[in-house]
């Protein structure tokens, strides 16, 4: 094989469970370093598991889901349908979509990008991987990814907010408040709305610094 190409199986990819235990990401894009647009696979190990998060892509990404194996039950807008392997599901931005595994070992490929814009890696992917590493006890590895992500996406509120969540769960309260303060500076109304209900931050509620930020 040369440097110009790579052969792999979706089964070679890490299986990264989300913080809430609901989702399992097979991080294809990061693993191969693909940059033209977003592409990842999601696994439902057991029938009944969630494969695709219930979400709407409000930021304008159009998405295509491809059932690679197993079987999924998809919901797209008001419609719910059976999706055997080879099913292609196109979701426009804003459309509610989700998928549950109808059989064990269901894999769905998700492809997405914004029309008319050059694609850039989205911070969610890095944070997802960082949080999965932390949950698996690889805190330093996760923290290094958080630091990289913050450097790559300066000026966002999502970056420091997620970094605060990471550190709050990892047990570094000082670092958590430092990130939270930056997030509040960048988007006070949004953070005031989300922070109180975020389970990752619950532990910080008794700290005087929480009162300073959110009264």
């Amino acid at each position, binding site marked *: *094989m*040369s*440097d*110009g*190409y*790579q*052969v*792999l*199986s*979706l*089964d070679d990819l890490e299986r990264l469970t989300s913080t809430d235990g609901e989702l399992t990401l097979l991080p294809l894009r990061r693993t*191969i*370093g*693909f*940059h*033209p*647009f977003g*592409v990842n696979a999601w696994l439902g190990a057991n029938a009944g598991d969630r494969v695709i998060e219930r979400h709407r892509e409000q930021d304008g*990404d*159009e998405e*295509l889901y*491809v059932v*690679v*194996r197993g079987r999924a039950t*998809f919901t*797209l*807008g008001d*419609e719910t*349908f059976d*999706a*055997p*392997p*080879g*099913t*292609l*599901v*196109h*979701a*426009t931005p804003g*459309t509610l979509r989700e998928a549950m595994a109808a059989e064990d070992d269901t*894999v769905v*490929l998700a*492809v*997405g*990008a*914004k*029309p*008319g*814009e*050059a*694609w850039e890696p989205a911070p969610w992917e890095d944070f997802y991987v960082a949080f999965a590493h932390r949950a698996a006890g690889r805190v330093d590895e996760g923290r290094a990814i958080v630091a990289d992500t913050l450097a790559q996406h300066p000026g966002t509120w999502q970056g420091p907010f997620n970094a605060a969540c990471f550190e709050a769960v990892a047990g570094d309260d000082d670092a958590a408040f430092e990130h939270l303060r930056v997030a509040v500076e960048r988007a006070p109304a949004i953070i005031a709305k989300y922070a109180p209900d975020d389970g990752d931050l619950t532990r910080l509620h008794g700290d005087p610094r929480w009162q300073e930020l959110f009264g």
Partner: protein
Amino acid sequence: MTHTHVDELDRIELDDGFEWRPVRRRFDIRAFGVNAYAPGATGQVVEEHSESALGHEEIYLVLRGRARFTVDGNEHELGPGQLVFVRDPSLRRGAVALSDDTIVLALGGRPGVAHEPSAWEAMFAAVPAAREGRWADAIRMHEAALAEQPASAPLLYNLACMESRGGWPLDALLHLAEAIELDPKWAAYAAKDTDFDPIRDEPGFPA
């Protein structure tokens, strides 16, 4: 319809022996390139080609069956859930199906730029119309693609081919001249292309 199955897509068998099942066009996806391929008469499932002209990075994922890929001269036999990621657009790649039901999903785009639907898609889509001599339909498909990409030399060239064969010599000469003005290499292709036999002796045909 916002969902379908790979076996319900259009099936367009192309002259190189593979069957194109258009996914991007089916949903009018604008943000990325995606298509499915099945083996045609020759068993080819991914055309032998490089992506040098478009600069695309490509992923080929076997959805069903088995295929033998040849990438940069190396062979790899892949089954369902296995994939080849070809980062270097200049590498030659292609695949032959090892079972009749093989489906390969191809995803591609150029890093760092907004995706533009590839001109070849309109040309491939027009193949059945051209094969059946429905020149007006084939021409309409090219014109629709040109409305979005007016400076595509391959589209203009192919449009000229359809017009030449369909009996519109003046339109053919005009569009061939436009293609050659954008990229002179098309003059050399036109000199050998039998599609232009009907207009080769017309005044104004590029020598």
